[in-house]
């Protein structure tokens, strides 16, 4: 009943692990798959190794966390070993990649396409180094160039993960679609935001600011999915603050074909995937819907 299809890739359920959460090693990705996720997205990786920022890299705020990990990555050569060990019998494996320019994205994508079911492009990290992440995804032309270069380099479906930190997300979504993106992932973390310690006056994160995630950002994510669904004709993966089956239903109604879960793992661990999928199944049984597909876009009246 939960089976669905995303850009031609079959999923046993629409629940995916979001990039940047428990996605650095094959071992944790496999744990998430065993816990019931239909697919996992790796932590974003790049061509060359990168240490990321110093700690503190994460701090709690009302309704979630803000983080500035800083795109730490062991580099594509080392990360290939992890991707090789992901148990693709249990579920689907998606590589999240980042780079400084279209050539770097295309290079990394080409290196891993045989090891994964899909590739997600991180053009939306709000705490990336100059020239990376959201500085690409806030510009329709740069977004087009990155998506286009990767599409020319690989045959697996390509998702563009976009940032909500733009004036008009539809404009960027259309640009990614025109460049050939097979789907969109909405949204990356919000902001950036900041938390200051009131005893010393220091911003707590070493990078001073970071991307906000968690239940508090969900309404914004739902709205972005809703807008992109109206503006484009490609599947959307909804992400932002999902904590229970009702949140998933909201995203499906807004127009998402699948969803990703990340920060909420801190509340209850990887078991969240099993719990939400059984609750979602129960919801559909009691509803007028026969499948996930029937629910997609139901909120567009």
């Amino acid at each position: 009943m939960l089976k669905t299809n995303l850009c031609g890739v079959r999923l046993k359920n629409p629940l995916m692990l979001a990039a940047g959460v428990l996605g650095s090693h094959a071992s944790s990705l496999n744990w998430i798959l065993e816990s019931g996720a239909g697919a996992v997205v790796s932590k974003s990786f790049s061509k060359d190794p990168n240490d990321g920022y110093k700690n503190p890299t994460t701090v709690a705020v009302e309704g979630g966390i803000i983080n500035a990990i800083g795109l730490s990555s062991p580099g594509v050569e080392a990360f290939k070993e992890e991707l090789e060990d992901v148990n693709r019998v249990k579920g689907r494996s998606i590589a999240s990649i980042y780079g400084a320019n279209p050539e770097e994205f295309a290079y990394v994508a080409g290196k891993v396409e045989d090891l994964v079911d899909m590739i997600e492009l991180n053009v939306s990290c709000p705490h990336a180094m100059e020239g990376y992440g959201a500085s690409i995804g806030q510009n329709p032309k740069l977004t087009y160039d990155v998506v286009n270069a990767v599409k020319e380099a690989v045959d697996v479906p390509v998702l563009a993960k976009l940032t909500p930190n733009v004036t008009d997300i539809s404009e960027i979504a259309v640009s990614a679609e025109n460049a050939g993106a097979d789907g969109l992932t909405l949204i990356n973390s919000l902001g950036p935001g900041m938390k200051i310690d009131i005893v010393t006056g220091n911003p707590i994160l070493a990078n001073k600011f970071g991307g906000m995630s968690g239940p508090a950002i969900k309404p914004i994510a739902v709205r972005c999915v809703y807008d992109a669904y109206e503006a484009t004709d490609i599947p959307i993966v909804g992400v932002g603050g999902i904590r229970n089956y009702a949140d998933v239903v909201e995203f499906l109604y807004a127009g998402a074909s699948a969803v990703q879960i990340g920060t909420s793992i801190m509340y209850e661990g990887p078991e969240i995937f099993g719990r939400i999928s059984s609750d979602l199944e129960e919801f559909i049984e009691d509803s007028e819907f026969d499948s996930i597909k029937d629910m997609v876009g139901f909120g567009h009246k």
Partner: protein
Amino acid sequence: MVINDGHSVGLSFLRFGDRMNVPQVIEIKKIIEETPTIKTFIFDWTMVGENIPTPGQFVMVWNFKDEKPMSVSYIDVHKGEFGITVKKVGPFTEDLHSLKEGDKLGIRGPYGNGFDTNLKGMRVLAIGGGVGMAPIASFTEEALRKKAIVDVVCAAQTKDELLFDERLKARGAKVYTCTDDGSCGFKGFATHRVLQLIEHKEYDWAVVCGPEVMMRPLYGSLEAHMIEGEYSMERYMKCAIGVCGQCCVDKTGWRICAEGPVFSSDQVSEIVEFGKFHRTASGLKEYF
């Protein structure tokens, strides 16, 4: 089918958001020079609910430049104090060592699963190598309070660097010291001292903390003698709240910050990287 009602959501935000996961900037109440390279820092602490540290748990320590996990070495619930014990090994710990009483640090936690201390009547062998004695000391005090019989193997490179041997003797543990250079007690590694001990004495349980190159052979010896127990591990840590994935271990994927840092013997057998490699901040493997 359960949607969290407002009440439980509110409570969990209090637990995860408002208190534990934001550094509390507090004064260093007292500094104790334990050895030429090791100092203990004592803090006043509100001992309520999950705020109360247990032996084997750790806190994240923020010096306003960087933040690192440190295991809890002193717990006094009645006085409302806890302590961490820090060896000078790099820029972060050097900075901590330069601080004075009354200076401030940010502390969040406590985090992770600690040692089982409900070991009444059991014959326990507690083994600590170097600053690995920090959680072993808080464990030993708690286990003694709960009427366990605890022998401690306290290992260091040299006599001056022995940590908490006198403290635990005073509490009633039998302490076997062991130094690499033979300047105090047995001459040689903890591994050898433990082998000698377990061939002559019966133990029901062991707890171990120290460098993994020490814990790995110890695990082999203790398993061979059918002595079950718990081992405390350490990995490069970022969020410490179970989301970032930096501290996950192969092949189970367990998070050192959430499922660890203390693991049972049976769990250790599933951690294939134990004693072999760890991952750096970038995620690259580094072999011990």
